[in-house]
């Protein structure tokens, strides 16, 4: 039987990907950022999943305004890195797990989540930067990836509560898959940042750390926070953090299991416009 063994949370800042692609990780500006992922890379090697269910948002790359899905599940076999305007990132092709994806689609749609299924799309920094910070620069990604896109670009975006409940439905889906698979779920985006207007550059260190505390200790309560609080406190793009609730909702304790172990927690300001947040939670079975 497939099992969700751990969840990983991380910002997916494009400049972090660029710093890796250009070999700048040891520069004084970037060194403290990447130091925060040293433990994580070791941990991931020792806890190598078969599949990562990777929750992210496409940033107007695969999805233009022609068609805006609220939740989109990748059911394809492979996903090429996107050209976001600077040319595609020099990172490996992302390989999917169509059988598990199809199974999750079947289960989650029957649980009344109105997914859009995607068989072909390029994946942008929202998906590839988390892979880079967690895996470094391998020739090929060491596991399969199921991309799951959440609309946080055009309002209304799905509520924190909806996201948290979706995580629970994903857990049910994964755990009813017959094959023995080690599955991790990653929630990406955030933490506080605003990329637009006179308020660009907003960072709220106190709020971010309270978010991490609550995500660990009481995610059900955290999931009731309205969008406006994210925007007001953590910047217009801080609303990406609702995606972390999907990953958190898929953990065992939400469904009556044991509380997860916090394996790693990291916070740093700044990377480009953004506060970097990162967390690893392991299920205890």
């Amino acid at each position, binding site marked *: 039987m497939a099992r969700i063994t751990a969840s990983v949370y991380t910002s997916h800042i*494009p*400049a972090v990907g*660029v710093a890796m692609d250009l070999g700048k990780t040891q520069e004084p*500006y970037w060194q403290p950022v990447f130091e925060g992922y040293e433990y994580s890379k070791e941990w991931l090697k020792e806890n190598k999943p078969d599949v990562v269910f990777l929750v992210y948002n496409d*940033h*107007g*790359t695969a999805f*233009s*305004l*022609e068609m805006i899905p609220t939740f989109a599940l990748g059911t394809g076999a492979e996903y090429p890195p*996107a*050209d*976001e*305007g*600077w*040319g595609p990132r020099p990172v490996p092709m992302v390989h999917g797990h169509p059988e598990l994806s199809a199974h999750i689609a079947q289960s989650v749609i029957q649980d009344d989540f109105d997914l859009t299924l995607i068989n072909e799309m390029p994946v942008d920094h929202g998906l590839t930067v988390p892979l880079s910070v967690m895996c470094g620069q391998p020739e090929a990604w060491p596991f399969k990836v199921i991309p799951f896109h959440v609309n946080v*670009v*055009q*309002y*209304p975006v799905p509520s924190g509560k909806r996201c948290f409940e979706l995580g629970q439905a994903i857990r049910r889906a994964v755990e009813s898959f017959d094959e023995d698979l080690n599955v991790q779920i990653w929630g990406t985006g955030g933490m*506080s940042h*605003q*990329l*637009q*207007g*006179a*308020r*660009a*550059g*907003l*960072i*709220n*260190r106190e*709020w971010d750390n309270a978010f991490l505390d609550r995500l660990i200790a009481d995610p059900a309560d955290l999931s009731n926070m*309205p*969008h*406006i609080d994210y*925007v*007001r*406190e953590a910047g*217009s*793009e801080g609303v990406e953090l609702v995606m972390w609730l999907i990953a958190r909702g898929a953990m065992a304790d939400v469904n009556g299991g044991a509380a997860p172990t916090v394996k790693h927690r990291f916070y740093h*300001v*700044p990377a*480009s*416009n953004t*506060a970097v947040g990162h967390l690893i939670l392991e299920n205890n079975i």
Partner: protein
Amino acid sequence: MSLNKPYKDIPGTTIFDAEESRKGYWLNQFCSSLMKAENRTRFKADERAYLNEWKMTEAQKDAVISRDLNECIRLGGNIYFLARIGATDGLTFQQMAGSMTGMSEEEYRNMMVGGGRSPEGNRYLGEDGDAQPHRQPQGNHNKEEA
């Protein structure tokens, strides 16, 4: 429309909702076209001619040509789409974001290294934070010029 839009009272912040999206549809679609290298080349060769291929308003075209991202946002642009223009110009996200604050690139970068913009006074319109309308444009850079 009588639906609640509680996000109109935050200074220096535009929430990209369906209304903004309608307004900015072709502006953002033009931006999306710049994800193709050949379109970036054509745009750079003759910006006005390339823009004229899109159902954009003249105000939108002017805002693109003058790289006024704040004006682009007022006209329905969304930052993720507008970023394609910056990418075409070889700018980073930090340079683009900074360009909307009135600060010089160095001032903005220093603000970020110093911990970023404080939320204090910047949560509601009418407070006294540095992102409030009455404190624009920001930065010594601008003040010196003015």
